């Protein structure tokens, strides 16, 4: 197998194809601290792309409650079990990726979930790690925890779905790095379903071929962020483009979050796919769990996030989440305002770093009435 460089694991690794990075790379940052599991993103995706026959159990976007939830059931536990628990405790990952751990005759380490595993997309919803003792609620920190993990296809730089397909029906677009599955070429072998450790390719039993998230490419081509991003109630998402690791730009909000402040982390970097969806880890969850899930540097990321008010550039980037449906290619913070620009330099949005506070008298003289705090 050829060798490619995966910056997330800090070393070269094996991959079935030569590593050619696309001209631009679709990416997303999700702030898990803000997700409320309302599933608006799931429904927005579903109604946009997968309401058809054979897509009944298919959710290109899903939101699961960690640690117990998972769609398909136990996807993370099962692949970790196969790979062995190999946490990433330093910038260079010493263990094996799923390509390097592939058994004889396989391209990647993987498995096909059972049909039942896809049948309960929100299993484990709101379940925390254990029960709370009487009164424990009133003391901090809470010993039990849970958090919401929204997931889409990671449009991986080294996509295992792509590498696993013997017909080369899956391709990565050079113009934006979106990974697409050719609906005309696929023959439904399901090698991609087996090979994707995130289980983000799905089999359509009516058309009898596989399907996957298309990164809302018609929107991206028109400078618009994905459906799951622009509908997000919690404004937890920012979608745009990530630069190549050695070409990070401080004025690209995604680069700032991922490469400069290092507050956003990849999902299971140890799998070796260099996914392009990044997560700001939930700061109330034990770092040990998060290190397994988001790799090296989680504790630093949590600390940086806690102190975000001290870094105006970081705060500015965070405030641009959910502020505009357009893709923000560049941003700056000027006079306590974060300003986002499109690729032609046109201004898209201005967000104040601190929302102005208006203090009003409790009694409204004009209407001769008492105000409540929502009037």
């Amino acid at each position: 197998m050829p060798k490619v460089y995966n910056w997330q694991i800090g070393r070269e690794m094996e991959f079935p194809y030569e590593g050619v990075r696309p001209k631009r790379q679709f990416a997303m940052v999700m702030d898990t601290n803000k997700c409320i599991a309302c599933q608006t993103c799931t429904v927005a995706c579903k109604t946009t792309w997968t309401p058809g026959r054979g897509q009944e159990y298919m959710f290109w976007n899903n939101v699961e409650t960690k640690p117990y939830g998972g769609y398909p059931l136990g996807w993370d536990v099962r692949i970790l079990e196969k790979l062995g628990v190999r946490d990433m405790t330093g910038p260079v990952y010493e263990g094996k990726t799923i390509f390097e751990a592939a058994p004889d005759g396989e391209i990647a380490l993987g498995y096909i979930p059972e049909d039942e595993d896809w049948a309960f997309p929100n299993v484990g919803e709101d379940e925390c790690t254990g029960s709370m003792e009487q009164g424990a609620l009133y003391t901090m920190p809470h010993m039990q925890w849970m958090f919401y993990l929204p997931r889409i296809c990671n449009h991986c730089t080294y996509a295992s779905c792509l590498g696993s397909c013997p017909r080369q029906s899956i391709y990565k677009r050079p113009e934006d790095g979106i990974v697409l599955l050719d609906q005309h070429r696929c023959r439904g072998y399901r090698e991609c379903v087996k090979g994707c450790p995130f289980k983000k390719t799905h089999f359509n039993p009516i058309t009898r071929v596989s399907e996957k998230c298309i990164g809302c490419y018609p929107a991206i081509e028109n400078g618009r962020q994905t459906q799951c991003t622009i509908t997000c109630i919690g404004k937890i998402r920012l979608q745009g483009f990530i630069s190549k690791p050695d070409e990070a730009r401080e004025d690209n909000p995604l680069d700032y979050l991922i490469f400069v402040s290092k507050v956003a982390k990849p999902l299971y970097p140890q799998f070796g796919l260099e996914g392009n969806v990044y997560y700001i880890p939930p700061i109330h969850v034990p770092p040990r769990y998060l290190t397994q899930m988001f790799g090296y540097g989680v504790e630093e990321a949590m600390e940086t996030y806690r102190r975000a008010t001290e870094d105006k550039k970081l705060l500015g980037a965070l405030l641009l989440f959910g502020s505009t449906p357009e893709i923000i290619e560049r941003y700056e913070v000027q006079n306590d305002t974060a300003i986002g620009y499109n690729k032609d330099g046109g201004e898209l949005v201005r967000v104040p770093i601190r929302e102005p506070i208006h203090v009003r008298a409790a009694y409204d003289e004009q209407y001769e009435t008492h105000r409540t705090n929502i009037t």
Partner: protein
Amino acid sequence: MNKSFHRRAWAGFAVLLVLMPGCPSERPDPAVEREREGIEAVRIEGTGAILDPGAGFWNEAPAFSVQLQPQVVVDPRLPEAAVGELEARAVHNGEWIGMRLRWADETRDDVLRTADFGDQVAVQFPIDPHGPLPSAMMGHEGAPVNVVQWRAPFQRDLDEGAPDIFDLYPYALVDIYPDEVLGVIDARAYTGALGVDNPISRPYESPVLDQIAEGWGSLTVKPIQLADGRGVWNDGEWTVVITRPLFPITPNDPDLRPGTATNAAFAVWEGGSGETGARKSWALWVPLRVAE
């Protein structure tokens, strides 16, 4: 990227050629001799496609035992193939050739769900019986092969109707489908592979796909489908007939006219064991004589 892929494939091909049954050996072995003789397609009465797996005329054709090996040349592969042997008989009526293939399979796998694969069998012919023999592994560049593949799920579609979601998942919940509220043109965007006329998705009148290949990963369904067939599963055994015209009609049809000495190769997939695509058992070229 293609290059390294093909290099891998060819390296394996060279190894297999050495191991291939039928290669000259020092002492004549009766089994090898039988293999050399190959399959004879005997002449029968009749016209048109040969479709009946239970017809009496199959007894006129000698049974040939095809020994199958697991595909181990390219990844992905299975260490052990579920089906090791296939009985092949061939007949022709001057217009069509029919091959009847019979193999033991405890499970009838003809429903496709995420983790359920279908049983399949395929016969492969060189397009040009007089040219250099194409690679038995789906041909090679410049030496195409015709792959006629019978699929159990297609057979079930024809026998019992194509399934809807409630046949596959009885407890599925559905509000409304786009095609119930939108016109055909607008609803097409929601039909996935069907909407782009993927040959695997669209309905056929035949359970057999008529295809061409010129090497690994190049299998393509032909624009005009001439092959036909019929399969029945009974008591742990599939009996499948695959039939096609003897004379080339459309570009890249194999030439199998009476009197031709050519070859046939075979592949079987046992869906219940997760066999699909490259995960299959196969037999390399077996001589095939089409009687005058």
